[in-house]
């Protein structure tokens, strides 16, 4: 996910530099207000909130408030934050529209949904 995201940004930057798609970029930015950072929590062995609706390009940042470590992991295997210790955060940027089921690899009963809408 991060790799995809970086590649997309690089391509985007190149096109911007060439000045070829600048008008299109401005329109898109106005319509969607740019990508957002969405703050989410892990607390009491649950993802809070347990359902997020975001836009393609948005980043979700999970902060773990529990004493136990957790992960936020794509059930389909596409991405994984790795261990998030108490008080730490991890981010995932979502470029591709779609629906994701998130779970914790350490406590698989912890699940959440993320719906990524096209911009």
């Amino acid at each position, binding site marked *: 996910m991060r790799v995809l995201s970086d590649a997309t940004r690089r391509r985007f930057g190149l096109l911007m530099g060439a000045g070829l798609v600048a008008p299109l970029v401005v329109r898109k930015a106005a319509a969607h207000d740019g990508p957002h950072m969405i703050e989410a929590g892990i607390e009491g062995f649950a993802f809070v909130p347990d359902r997020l609706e975001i836009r393609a390009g948005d980043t979700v940042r999970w902060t773990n408030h529990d*004493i136990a*470590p957790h992960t936020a992991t794509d059930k389909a295997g596409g991405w994984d934050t790795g261990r998030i210790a108490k008080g730490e955060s991890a981010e995932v940027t979502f470029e591709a529209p779609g629906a994701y089921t998130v779970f914790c690899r350490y406590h698989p009963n912890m699940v959440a949904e993320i719906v990524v809408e096209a911009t």
Partner: protein
Amino acid sequence: MIRQTMFAVALAAVTPAIAQDQMNDLQIAHTAYTAGQLDIRYAHLALAISENDAVRAFAETMIRDHTAVNESAVALITELNVTPEDNDLSRALVEGAAAKRAEFMALSGNDFDCAYAANELGYHQVVNQTVEGKFIPWATVEPLKALLSDALVTFKVHEGHAEEMVAGLQCAS
């Protein structure tokens, strides 16, 4: 099932007799830490013996979570600059766990998995009752109360996982 009940009864026979006398903060800290370390030792034994994926995953979670809780406990103890105090309940837990480990080491395969799973369920039940019903009300230092409350959330999830693990095994009742 029989093992689990016997264990619960055995621990219950020890626990109320000793834990009826109110413990101080340093004794509570010692016993809570000890209980976590003992569960980590059970888990290492499970990883050495069990070949069941669910049992191994549970054991890995016990090591990860109890290590995290006890690291927080050490951080608190260091911050408060105090020394936890050994006590009768800690000693009873250590003795009981040593006997259990000796019993487990003679087992293998499904027999081990069932004994470990039942013990984890019983152990977390007793520890949770003690933490919730005694240690948290008894604790006088606010950060210790807070740590115990956070830990209890974790231990209750473990109890739930242990229930699922027991239900997922084919154990003679």
